[in-house]
């Protein structure tokens, strides 16, 4: 093991997976502040349409919505998960580092310019991209369509290209490390389920991102080299523009071929981290480890063939729609297995309600609520009504917003002692929990109501439309809750920062957990496990194995005959 010295080598261009993991997490927190501030602006605009109308015209509104979505999906949740994967995978499988530490360092330092490019795009002429996080043409393809279609969109594509490059490099590391660097005795069936989650997510990402890369390249050619893959002749500002006869819908197919698997790339590791948190506080093994793993594999395969459910209203052949509808409803079966196993893991538990556990419990509720909404969207007939309403906004925020963020928070409280050798403050943690989970779930459930009422998404001033009158009552409460939610995050930032320096010193295994990372010192030294790598003798979740035995048995404890 090389031990790189000096400040630069140790903390900036470090090869150590733990340092890189923390770098990712801190970057994600910084990006979350910006993406969250955008949400606050959006909600302000929706509650008081007149306020700031000069400073933020409709073009700016849609630009903020676009960047809020892009940053949250790719630069907050994805980066936070990359960080946790980096930190956890080698520790949980008993490796000293990633298989390719240099590549790992490179992937972090590729995503940093991607972040900067995305942020810089706010300050160029025309402002940031305005075609939604999905970058649909023609808004994204015709440079003069709206102000954000200019340089802002070009920078968006550039930033995304760098992000995909970095994410793929990271994924190659996760994959090779998990498959090849497991310590002696760590069979696939003994791996903590979090590692499984990251494994399935990684394979999905490696297979699903290339079509988006292809789409982005064709889009760039349309924008800058006069091709017409996605653009067609159209009327723009009252003038006829001959742009060729491309097919805008093709972009949607390519985008959602990535887009749908991407939601599982985000949500599977989150569900698995929740699985991993639970047993430490229920003092019972998780329920249905194997069915959960199989369910994830099935979800992984199915998730690549259901993308059309985002396109029911694009005029697709009804038989094709029927197929996508059935496939989508089928995917809810393995997904429910995960949800039910989470719930069943609580059965007859002697629960300890520490902060990570509170977040884990909230994740379970969010999985249920979000999946329930999904059923109505996956059914073509009802989706024709729900499409492009706040019902969809509520649905996906429960899934890739609430499930992910709550479980990432839970994971941070849970593994913080391992990262920094100190505990986070429990009292602040509880405040943060109630002020986060409460508003978050309420906001997005209320959005379902607005969607039932027919309120359309991506509308900068809903009061312009008379049919929307009856939806106006919920607008202000949602906005106020969003403010509360945003402000509450300062508790987390304060707790996180303070605890790094002043937190109570953490023992190696503060939660009395069984997996390998807890058998290493807190924080683990360079190389993680000292002279000898640990040897694994048992399943990952041996809690309360039986009468008269210890409450929990770490994976490293030898079986007695």
């Amino acid at each position, binding site marked *: *093991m*090389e031990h790189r010295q000096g400040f630069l080598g140790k903390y900036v261009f470090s*090869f150590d997976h733990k340092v890189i993991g923390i770098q990712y997490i801190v970057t994600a927190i910084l990006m979350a502040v910006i993406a969250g501030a955008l949400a606050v602006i959006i909600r302000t605009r929706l509650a008081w349409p007149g306020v700031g109308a000069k400073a933020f015209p409709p073009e700016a509104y849609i630009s903020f919505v676009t960047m809020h979505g892009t940053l949250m999906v790719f630069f907050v949740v994805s980066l936070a998960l990359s960080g946790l994967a980096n930190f956890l995978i080698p520790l949980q499988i008993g490796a*000293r*580092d990633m*298989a*390719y*530490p*240099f590549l790992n360092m490179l992937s972090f330092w590729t995503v940093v310019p991607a972040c900067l490019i995305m942020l810089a795009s706010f300050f160029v002429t025309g402002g940031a991209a305005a075609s939604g996080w999905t970058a649909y043409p023609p808004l994204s393809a015709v440079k003069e369509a709206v102000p954000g279609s200019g340089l802002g969109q070009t920078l968006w594509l550039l930033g995304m290209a760098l992000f995909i490059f970095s994410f*793929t490099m990271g*994924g*190659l590391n996760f*994959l*090779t*490390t998990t*498959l*090849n*660097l497991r310590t002696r005795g760590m069979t696939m069936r003994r791996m903590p389920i979090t590692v499984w989650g990251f494994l399935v997510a990684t394979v999905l990402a*490696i*297979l*699903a*991102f*290339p*079509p988006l*890369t*292809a*789409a982005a*390249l*064709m889009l760039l*050619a349309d924008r800058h*080299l*006069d*091709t*017409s*893959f996605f653009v067609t002749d159209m009327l723009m500002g009252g003038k006829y523009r001959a742009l*060729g*006869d*491309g*097919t805008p819908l*093709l972009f949607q*197919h*390519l985008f959602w*071929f990535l887009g749908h698997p991407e939601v599982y790339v985000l949500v599977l590791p989150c569900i698995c981290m929740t699985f991993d948190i639970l047993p430490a506080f229920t003092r019972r093994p998780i329920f249905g480890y194997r069915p959960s793993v199989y369910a994830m594999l099935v979800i992984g395969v199915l998730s690549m063939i259901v993308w059309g459910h985002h396109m029911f209203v694009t005029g697709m052949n009804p038989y094709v729609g029927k197929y996508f509808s059935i496939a989508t409803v089928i995917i809810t079966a393995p997904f429910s297995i995960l949800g039910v196993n989470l719930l069943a893991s609580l059965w007859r538990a002697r629960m300890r309600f520490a902060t990570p556990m509170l977040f884990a419990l909230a994740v379970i509720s969010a999985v249920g609520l979000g999946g329930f909404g999904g059923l109505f969207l996956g059914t073509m007939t009802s989706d024709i009504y729900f499409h492009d309403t706040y019902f969809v906004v509520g649905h996906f925020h429960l899934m890739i917003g609430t499930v992910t963020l709550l479980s990432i928070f839970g994971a941070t409280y849970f593994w913080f002692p391992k990262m920094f050798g100190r505990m986070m403050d429990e009292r602040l943690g509880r405040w943060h929990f109630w002020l986060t989970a409460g508003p978050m779930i309420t906001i997005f459930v209320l959005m379902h109501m607005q969607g039932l009422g027919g309120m359309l998404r991506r509308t900068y001033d809903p009061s312009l439309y008379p049919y929307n009158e009856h939806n106006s009552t919920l607008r202000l409460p949602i906005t106020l809750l969003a403010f509360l939610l945003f402000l509450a995050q300062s508790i987390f930032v304060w707790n996180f920062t303070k605890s790094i320096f002043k937190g109570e010193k953490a023992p190696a295994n503060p939660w009395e957990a069984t997996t390998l990372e807890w058998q290493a010192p807190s924080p683990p030294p360079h190389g993680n496990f000292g002279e000898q790598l640990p040897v694994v003798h048992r399943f990952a979740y041996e809690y309360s194995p039986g009468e008269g035995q210890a409450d929990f048995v770490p994976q490293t404890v030898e079986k007695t005959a």
Partner: protein
Amino acid sequence: MTADALPAPVRAQSNRVLVVALIATTAMLFTAFAAAYLERSGARGWRRLDLPGILWANTLVLALSSVAAEIARRSRARPFDAVKDRSNVASFTGKPQGIARWALPASVLLGLLFLAGQAAAWAELRAEGVFLPTSPYASFFYLLTAIHAVHVAAALLALSVALTRARILGLAVGFWHFMGIVWLYVLLILKVLG
């Protein structure tokens, strides 16, 4: 890294996984282009172009390069003088003898020749007045060949590194064969489908 923290077999195995993953992700990229091409070729106004004949010569050059790379790989895997010493059979460290010594450099040169040939094909089309935006078919032709060329360049880089680092030879050659297969795939799309 001090030479390598991992035991050699673990390193070799994870290199193999790495190349398989790279191949998978690249294959998905070209699959996506093929899907787009198929979709587009069904639309109105679709017309194919006559492709420059030099593409066939390029195909031959790429095939020869693959053969040369394979010769290089086998000569390393089973060095001629190691046949007696069976313990050495599977190692990649044996030095190839005679003509096999030139197989890998020849493969790299043929690869470069392929790229030059592709550039000539582009020049020929441009001379005929066919540019990227000229027609949907032309757009796909330039796009597919260019993306393939970029990957070929990267694979050539790996082959060149293998000139001095025999450890990665097998993997570089594996990826190189894959580039040949992708080229046949691209030709199949452009000449037969749509």
